[in-house]
């Protein structure tokens, strides 16, 4: 467990969004609630995640749904490892 943080790093926000998608494909409003982000910031991060290949976007009728990719799952594994690694040194990521 990491200590108290003033802000979430970009990597941590990415991880929070990806964790929200681990339960299954989700709409923007669902991710917004789970990742605790404003709509504007979430839109920006979703575009970055999609561009990096960590999430995929599908159109279901008039709704946009996001899902985590294999690369996104790998990112989460690496994030957890690096979180523990940095924590061992008393540092946060």
């Amino acid at each position: 467990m990491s200590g108290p943080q003033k802000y979430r790093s970009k990597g941590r926000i990415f991880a929070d969004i990806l964790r929200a998608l681990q339960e299954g494909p989700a709409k923007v409003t669902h991710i917004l609630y789970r990742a605790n982000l404003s709509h504007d910031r979430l839109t920006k991060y979703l575009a970055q995640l999609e561009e990096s290949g960590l999430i995929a976007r599908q159109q279901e009728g008039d709704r946009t749904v996001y899902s985590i990719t294999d690369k996104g799952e790998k990112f989460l594994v690496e994030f957890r490892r690096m979180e523990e690694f940095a924590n061992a040194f008393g540092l946060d990521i």
Partner: protein
Amino acid sequence: MFPPRWFLPYDAIFVLIAAFVALAVALYALHGYRWIRERTLYVLFLAFLLLSVGLFINGITLGYSYATGVTFSKFGSSSLVADVGFWAYYLMSMVAYSLLAFAYAKRLRESTIALAAGGTMGKGQGSGGIGTSLVAAGPVMELVLVILLLVILIAQLADLTVKHNRYSTLVTVSFAMLLASHILFMFSSIGDVIYVVGRVMELAGFISLLSVLLGLRGAK
């Protein structure tokens, strides 16, 4: 540093093992940085890379000193190459530990742990003076490393009081060993055994870091 001549080959091997461990830590941090793009990981990469390069230079210098019959005394070594090698090692180690101390100071400032540990950073760098023999200046250089390691250890201990996990404990033990080893190196002119024990403690510190790395790599 006053390495006893009979110990030089073992010394070089011990230092090269420590260099490989530091390199492994650096590469692990770099691997993480490529995925996560977090500056903390890049600082860890840079610090351990510098430490590794410094240790490699030190190991090669020790091996060279043994092969060419360089002698060490309180008044200096009999080789300019050895002096330059040791200076390079000390300077790289200082920058490496300064980077780590900076990362800890930044972390402490940002966290709720109220501990003023940043004040000693950077003090005493460049001591020794141009033209001063390394062996004569060694204790001063060691003192700088001791101060930096003390800052790191205090920060690590402060963190350990909040987090109680195996890896944090092992990293704390590593830094405690490294600190103890450099304190012993400072007083190595007293007797050969002090230098040898210091080197063994340094190696033990790096082995402890290696166990953290292996544990994390094996974790799901």
